[in-house]
């Protein structure tokens, strides 16, 4: 009993999103762990970007530059295939989300941080931005009139379902991401509590690296597909 009691207590402690500190204005603004980790990720990514793009050359690029270019080209091609070259303007944002999610789901976890996507705030934030992008993509393509009209297509009867879809799509995005990362985190914590040596390694490979990358991929992939659906005539 004590072992399982300890385990449960340990687990709930790990699962809680801790408030690291409180800014003492307006009656105290709590700053979550995930927000601070996001800041760290931002700092690492920006510094890495500056370091990687220091010596870009048009001719005779180095190995690092070639890797960087082929990676970025791959992402551009990937999104071009989904919503076409004419909508390339959305790609930098989706690339940012891809890099951020891949980095926070895998690298930060391997460094020992809690993934920020384990906090519902972050996934809801990502989903809200996706919602905004999906709907504005449709509005920009079809105009306000066409955008409103498309809710009644293909038949007027499904208009309520179409309207519900506005909320359902980002909800599914956010909950899928949150559920996967949170679930992986819980399983990993349990494994680490029960068998802390060697055994977690293969599980970490799957839950942290494979699942983390997969969720990052799925999130941007689905956002792009939803955008394409909205932009299609």
């Amino acid at each position: 009993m004590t072992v399982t009691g300890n385990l449960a207590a340990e687990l709930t402690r790990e699962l809680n999103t801790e408030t690291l500190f409180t800014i003492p204005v307006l009656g105290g603004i709590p700053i979550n762990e995930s927000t601070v980790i996001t800041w760290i990720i931002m700092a690492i990514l920006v510094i890495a970007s500056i370091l990687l793009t220091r010596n870009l050359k048009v001719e005779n690029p180095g190995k690092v530059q070639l890797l960087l270019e082929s990676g970025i080209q791959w992402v551009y091609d990937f999104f071009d295939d989904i919503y076409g070259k004419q909508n390339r303007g959305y790609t930098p944002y989706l690339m940012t989300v891809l890099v951020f999610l891949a980095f926070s789901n895998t690298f930060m976890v391997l460094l020992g941080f809690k993934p920020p996507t384990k906090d519902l705030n972050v996934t809801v934030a990502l989903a809200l931005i996706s919602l905004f992008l999906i709907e504005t993509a449709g509005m920009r393509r079809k105009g306000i009139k066409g955008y409103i009209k498309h809710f009644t297509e293909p038949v007027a009867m499904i208009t309520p379902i179409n309207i519900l879809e506005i909320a359902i799509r980002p909800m599914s995005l956010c909950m899928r991401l949150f559920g996967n990362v949170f679930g992986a985190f819980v399983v990993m914590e349990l494994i680490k509590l029960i068998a802390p040596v060697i055994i977690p390694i293969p599980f970490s490979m799957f839950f942290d690296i494979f699942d983390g990358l997969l969720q990052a991929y799925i999130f941007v992939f689905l956002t792009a597909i939803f955008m394409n659906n909205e932009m299609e005539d």
Partner: protein
Amino acid sequence: MISVDINLLFAIINIIVLFLLLRKFLIKPVRNIMEKRDEMIRSGLENARKSQSDAELMKQEYEEKLKNAGDISAGIISDAKKEAEARSKNILDEANAKADNILSSARENAETAKIKAVSEAKEQIADLAAEMARKLVTTSKDSNFDSGEYDRFIRETGDDNDGN
């Protein structure tokens, strides 16, 4: 555990700021470089195509010029041949004329020499006749003028005249 609070706003701001930063520091520089390279390759190809067509044009020009040069040289050669022929004909004609001149003057000379010789011979014959007549006159006193005496005289005078 599953709750949404003010950190949602922070997360949104963080993501947007991260997007702006990554766009400025990662995506734009790399895309710029890639576009520049694309542009360079495209302009390089364009230049190559242009210089190739230029070279083609030049080649055509040269070929035409070469052909013209062949025509011109053929013209020059045929002119030179004609001139040479004309000149050789001239020279031949001149030489023929000179030869004719020389021949005719030689003939004239020979003629005059002959005439001179004949007139000289005539003179000598006249002298001879005169001599003979004088001798006849001087020897006829004896009236034994014989043919032996005559033959001797002819021989003497002939020997004298052989010196000419």
